[in-house]
């Protein structure tokens, strides 16, 4: 191939060059970007990164970009937090939180995927971009479309959290609310991409879009001192991210940037929408689609197209998949906030809560290095926990009022004992 990458079918292996298409027209399986690693190995070196800013564009050579690519705004480069308090709470030793709750510009890991998708959108000549979204992706598309000069039109389920709708509208994107769940929205977008010449980032630009997820994997390895962890716990909706982190690790091994080692991949879902974890736990050949019913709406995809790949990866890596209830999600959001000062959205609560469950099950050992992928910010889903924190009574701005307040609080605390 003349470029270092092109599209290839994940099932039958047929190649399709570079084009706005997401599935193999021979077998209907998803396409992904494949690279000429022999060529990359000759030119791409870890030393090249020295002096580059710490954001996702420092790995430009391993992404589907053009040779004359100029990095737009900084995206990614999020902290890998050594979570000592949370580790102690769970009785383990080496725990890290990859904190994409503070990913720029729109506070979720979706900024990474939109970044690479919009490079492809420009390349293919689209002037309007869009997506089907449970919220975070719409935020990311709207923000980056504004900054990079695209018209944006996003499709969302009508019952989405108000904060996520507002966080899209403010950037000037057109929002089309659909009476239906995410799977209905997604199906409609597949039909729209079939008919309109729009760049729908997670539909016809999907192979380029999903490559942006790899940068979370590259960053994790670099932040661990160019080594791979033993375990990664990743939230699963469509089931794409977990596979892209695995792809990133594999590429780093191919390039000789890290020592090869087995990494166990663990997938996290909410019990109210858990087709992939259900499939893993019941050892199904094919997952069974579900009707989502959970507060973790950013994970509420009942028919995950990358589900088969996620199940295969989890099984082959020796990992596992688990799911937790809505009350457990809320507890985990609070736990992460109160131990590590990280306020995550419901999806992050799912990941943290599932990690706890996996530790309790003995599937994650205390001495192993475990990375938990937190993908979105709690400010977007405050509805989910607002009832946990009712407003307290206001007091007068006087010292005696404060003293009376303290006394009443002590009385309440004593009564509680």
């Amino acid at each position, binding site marked *: 191939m003349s470029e270092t990458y092109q599209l290839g079918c994940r099932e039958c292996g047929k190649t399709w060059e570079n084009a706005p298409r997401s599935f193999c027209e021979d077998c209907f399986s998803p396409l992904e970007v494949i690279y000429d690693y022999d060529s990359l190995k000759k030119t791409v070196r870890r030393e090249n990164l020295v002096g580059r800013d710490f954001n996702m564009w420092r790995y430009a050579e391993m992404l589907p970009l053009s040779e004359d690519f100029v990095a737009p705004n900084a995206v990614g480069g999020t902290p890998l937090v050594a979570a000592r308090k949370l580790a102690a709470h769970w009785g383990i030793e080496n725990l890290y939180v990859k904190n994409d709750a503070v990913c720029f510009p729109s506070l979720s890991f979706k900024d990474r995927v939109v970044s690479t998708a919009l490079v492809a959108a420009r390349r293919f000549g689209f002037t309007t971009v869009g997506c089907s979204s449970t919220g975070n992706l719409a935020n990311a598309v709207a923000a980056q479309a504004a900054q990079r000069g695209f018209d944006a039109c996003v499709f969302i389920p009508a019952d989405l959290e108000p904060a996520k709708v507002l966080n899209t509208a403010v950037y000037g994107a057109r929002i089309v609310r659909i009476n239906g769940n995410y799977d209905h929205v997604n*199906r409609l977008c597949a039909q729209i991409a079939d008919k309109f010449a729009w760049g729908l980032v997670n539909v016809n630009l999907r192979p380029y879009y999903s490559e942006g997820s790899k940068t979370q994997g590259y960053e994790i390895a670099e932040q661990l001192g160019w080594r791979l962890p033993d375990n990664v716990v990743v939230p699963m909706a*469509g089931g794409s991210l977990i596979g892209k982190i695995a792809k990133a690790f594999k590429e780093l091994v191919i390039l000789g940037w890290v020592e090869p080692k087995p990494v166990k991949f663990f997938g996290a879902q909410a019990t109210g929408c858990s087709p992939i974890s259900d499939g893993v736990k019941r050892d199904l050949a094919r997952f069974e689609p579900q009707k989502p019913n959970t507060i973790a709406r950013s994970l509420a995809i009942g028919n*995950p*197209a990358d589900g088969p790949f996620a199940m295969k990866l989890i099984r082959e890596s020796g990992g596992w998949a688990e799911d937790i209830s809505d009350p457990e999600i809320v507890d985990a959001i609070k736990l992460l906030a109160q131990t590590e000062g990280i306020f995550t959205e419901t999806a992050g609560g799912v990941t943290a809560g599932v990690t706890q469950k996996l530790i309790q099950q003995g599937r994650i050992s205390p001495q192993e290095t475990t990375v938990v992928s937190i993908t979105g910010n709690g400010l977007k889903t405050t509805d989910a926990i607002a009832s946990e924190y009712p407003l307290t009574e206001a007091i007068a701005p006087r010292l005696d009022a404060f003293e009376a307040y303290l006394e009443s609080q002590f009385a309440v605390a004593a009564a509680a004992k």
Partner: protein
Amino acid sequence: MPVTIEIPTAFRRFTDGTPKIDCSAATIADALNDLTTRFPALSRHVRDEQGQIRQFLNVYLNEEDIRFLGGEGCTLKEGDRVLLVPSIAGGCV
């Protein structure tokens, strides 16, 4: 002719550009058989080697994925629309 099958663009190179067909099938399975009988080149794109509907091809009866309706044995009535849509992964993680 009670039932319409809508054919996605990617399949139309096997249907001489035909975007939809009408048929009188009683079940989804019958409808797919009608479709692939009329356009034999489509057969291997609709079903895998084991005869199952391909994993990444979603089949809908009106607004609903047929897997929620009992699979391809579910019955059709006059005016039903059968949609074939490639499975495209979601907006999320």
